[in-house]
């Protein structure tokens, strides 16, 4: 039997900015449910982010963060069961580039219009990870 050639998709097929479809939205929702059952220290507190997910790339970032948090929670529970010292668990942070950038822009515009507002913090966004 001869070797059958399998054509590859073009690089242009890649589009993480594609609008998120109903299936990925539901997967995000399922992961949010799973996240809500994790101990507090593993949660991302990004309800706002979940509702703001617009693209596949944004959905993927959230799904990955929760997936890793679930894995981390189980690894820690396993360490506890074995009587090992818990590893330090930094508070998980997701880079919410789009939302943060928009917020920064809003803040910047607001500061230009209302100089007194310059020092106010946005309550809806978290600082971006350095």
């Amino acid at each position, binding site marked *: 039997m001869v070797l059958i050639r399998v054509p*590859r*998709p073009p690089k242009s097929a890649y*589009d993480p900015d594609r609008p998120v479809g109903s299936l990925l939205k539901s*997967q995000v929702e399922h992961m949010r449910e799973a996240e809500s059952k994790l101990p507090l220290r593993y949660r991302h507190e990004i309800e706002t982010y979940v509702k703001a997910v617009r693209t596949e790339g944004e959905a993927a970032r959230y799904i990955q963060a929760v997936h890793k948090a679930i894995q981390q929670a189980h690894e820690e529970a396993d360490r506890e069961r074995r009587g090992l010292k818990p590893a330090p668990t930094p508070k998980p942070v997701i880079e919410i580039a789009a939302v943060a950038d928009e917020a920064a822009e809003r803040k910047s515009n607001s500061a230009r219009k209302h100089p007194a507002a310059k020092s106010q913090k946005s309550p809806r966004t978290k600082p971006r990870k350095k």
Partner: protein
Amino acid sequence: MPPGLDRLQHIVVLMMENRSFDHMLGSLKAVNPKIDGYVDGDAYTNPDANNNPVKPQPSAKFQGQLQPDPDHHFPAVDLQIFGKGSDPTANNRQPNMQGFVASYFNQQRNLAHSQMIMYYFPKENLPVLTTLALEFAVFNRWFSSIPGPTICNRAFAHYGTSFGRVDLNPIYPPETIKSVYTRLIHNDPKRTAKVYYYDTTSSTMEVANLLQNQPELFGTYKQFLQDCDNGDLPDYSFIEPNYSDHQSDSGALIANDQHPDHNVRAGEVFIAQVYQAIKNNPQLWESTALLITYDEHGGIFDHVPPPGCVADKFKADGNATGVGVDFHFDRLGVRVPTILISPWIPAGTVENRVFDHASIPATITKFFVGNYSADRSPREIAADIFIEPQGAAVDPARNLLSLDMMRADCPDFDA
């Protein structure tokens, strides 16, 4: 016992996304008339918004055609199956598969665009899927479990039921009905099972509850490839594709689930890689059966009316279905492409028995556990099995791994 069944140690299921049988494999009827697809000249059409007949066309593209995503929620599939003007409250409705164009027209009110739902792939454009279908066993009557979307259909592959759900909402299975994986790992003697998701960014679909409670059941696709290389594959493996375009450590990853509007060629490559991973290990190849299937039809046309089936013990009420009447899970969803692969299957095998995704836990449980006395759904209990159990008197008419000698002429792909 037939040697193929005697040597069978591993069953692998790969479930892709949202493509119908006729859309992917219908063109094969021209090559093998036993395959119930579509050839030019067949009578099947769908009426458009002006009641003009629309024929299936071999014009499907890999990407950029099915935008927006064709509706495949319960009410839309009801229209697709029963046609315009059908009253869901009427008794004895007969499915006619006349509502695909009407359903897609409802999304954009664009006559030309609505006809694209009748497009199918020429055989040459899907060299992996069509070659595997012609070289091994293709199922003429494998239907999605529910006339609805992904999540509830995937639940049938894991649990043999969707616990009354017909939508995309999270499912919280009651303790009584165990997943097929739990059945295997808690069996005596213990069996092994794994869900291989693509990566942590794609994660798992429908079984987030299992990921949360039984993470030991899960592994990555990379681990699947390693397990194939090392001969460490579990008894049962369920593989999930990549559901999203995203960045990974190795760069940009294109979704390979074939869900519209993801690139179909990426899925072809993925299917070929899974196949080659098994085939490249000779010990694994002779002792493994690979089932490739799709969760549901994704709103795309198929000409075969789904049959009725045994009702489940759960029901979805009229509010949940969105059509005003209860659904008792007593009929199947639209037909999907399904292929069983093993070097013990004769080339050109076409299976005509009726299956749906409940056949997956039914087959796996029967094969690896035997007589399973704990709770299972009526749908799973009634579902046919696609691999006969070992040790029993085997009916040759039902055994697909029927060859006395292992084939040496199976195809290879440059995946």
